[in-house]
């Protein structure tokens, strides 16, 4: 099976049939909803796959079988959406989706935002951003799509200045034009390791996605030195091929994910690390 890590038994069953079904799937969707319909959604492990897992029984009631493919990286889910392996994916935020569509020429649509994970900057020893010393290390994940976000946060706090000609979303550490404190950037840590770095690199600033921060036992609202607010553009969305813009099953999926039940689940489970949106 294709690396799924689904919780639900229903999903489990389809897992083994997956290889044989894979080619047939595309046809199935086109024929639409006479029988039980199957949609395949690619997702990152946390929290996307977990949220989807919660939605499985709800969609079941609607006669839709949801199959979840979990991905380790951020490149293949879009590739697979393009080549038809997936019907939709749920792992990326709007800026990333847009860049990808532009660069790779993907013909995707945003079916709707589901949540955002506020990025926060934490440090074990530094109490306040005013106390940041000269030459302090800033640690962020190795996901290129996070870099602009973190830099934007730092800029908003006046620690650095970015090149005005560069779109914030695409900014990298090479676009820092003013760096009065000579901050050192460490940009290639696997996101999963960030809590460890927070713990052990006590004198650094660590930019952690809130979900990992919570897993590590931090309380974002109290422990963060600075955290993204709800005005963020980094909302995670369900993306699909443009031709499926009006696919009923996918519409249902978005609907269910924005339902009160799921929103409550998100709020309870992630305690602020993942914030549901229903725009």
């Amino acid at each position: 099976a294709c690396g799924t890590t689904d919780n639900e038994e229903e999903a489990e069953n389809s897992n083994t049939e997956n290889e044989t079904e894979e080619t047939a799937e595309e046809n199935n969707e086109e024929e639409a909803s006479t029988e039980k319909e199957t949609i395949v959604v690619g997702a990152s492990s946390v929290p996307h796959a977990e949220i989807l897992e919660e939605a499985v029984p709800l969609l079941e009631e609607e006669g839709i079988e949801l199959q979840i493919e979990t991905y380790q990286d951020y490149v293949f889910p879009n590739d697979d959406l393009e080549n038809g392996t997936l019907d939709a994916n749920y792992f990326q935020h709007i800026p990333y989706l847009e860049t990808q569509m532009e660069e790779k020429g993907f013909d995707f649509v945003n079916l709707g935002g589901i949540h955002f994970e506020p990025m926060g900057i934490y440090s074990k020893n530094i109490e306040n951003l005013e106390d940041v010393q000269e030459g302090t290390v800033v640690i962020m994940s190795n996901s290129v799509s996070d870099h602009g976000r973190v830099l934007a946060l730092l800029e908003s706090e006046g620690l650095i200045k970015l090149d005005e000609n560069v779109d914030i979303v695409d900014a990298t550490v090479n676009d820092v034009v003013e760096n009065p404190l000579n901050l050192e950037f460490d940009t290639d840590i696997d996101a999963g390791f960030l809590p460890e770095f927070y713990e052990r690199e006590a004198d650094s600033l660590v930019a952690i996605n809130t979900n990992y921060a919570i897993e590590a036992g931090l309380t974002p609202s109290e422990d963060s030195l600075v955290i993204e607010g709800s005005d963020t553009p980094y909302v995670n969305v369900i993306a699909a091929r443009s031709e499926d813009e009006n696919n009923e099953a996918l519409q249902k999926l978005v609907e269910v994910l924005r339902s009160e039940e799921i929103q409550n689940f998100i709020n309870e489970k992630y305690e602020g690390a993942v914030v549901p949106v229903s725009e």
Partner: protein
Amino acid sequence: MLKEWFPNVIPEDLWIATQETLYMTSIAVIGTLILGIILGLLLFLTDRGNLWENRVIYGITAIVVNVFRAIPFIILILLLFPFTDFLLGTIRGWKAALPALIIGAAPFYARLVEIGLKEVDKGVIEAAKSMGARTHTIIMKVLLPESMPALISGITVTAIALIGYTAMAGVIGAGGLGNLAYLQGFQRRDFDVVLACTILIIIIVFILQVIGDLLTKAIDKR
């Protein structure tokens, strides 16, 4: 007890992942064995002072072997997409991981085969030559049998390394225990899942090692 010690472990997932690891590893081991022995023999035979001494073929084989050992696994997977797609019609799932696994591991095993073949007593090869044996016969009846303990220990080592590789094959949805440990365990910080997966991997490794050791011992008549 399982529930108590491993609250986040879903037995079915674990079972499926184990199967995936076993499938991937066993098929990849077979492929690696065949390809590795062929490449290893080529390296050995075309080397200076040996039966098929041939600088050109040796050079080419050495380059192939080294290049494929050198490429980071994730890049290798990427490079092999067209080939995998052509061969299997898909580039996802554990089957799609096989070409990369085999092509990643075979050059490595080829070197171990070469090391083993170099240890074969030259006098014995001479004896076979003096009997007028074809190179084919020398390979099948002298080189391989006389280096068998090293070949078996070598494939054991390679098989265990392959298990490590399968974890990386997770990026293309190959599944397996390593991937489960990373995604459900490490990323979600459910360390009981990591532990369970690791224990299962260790068990598999031990079984492989024991089989390898027993075979080596049974075969070694020196």
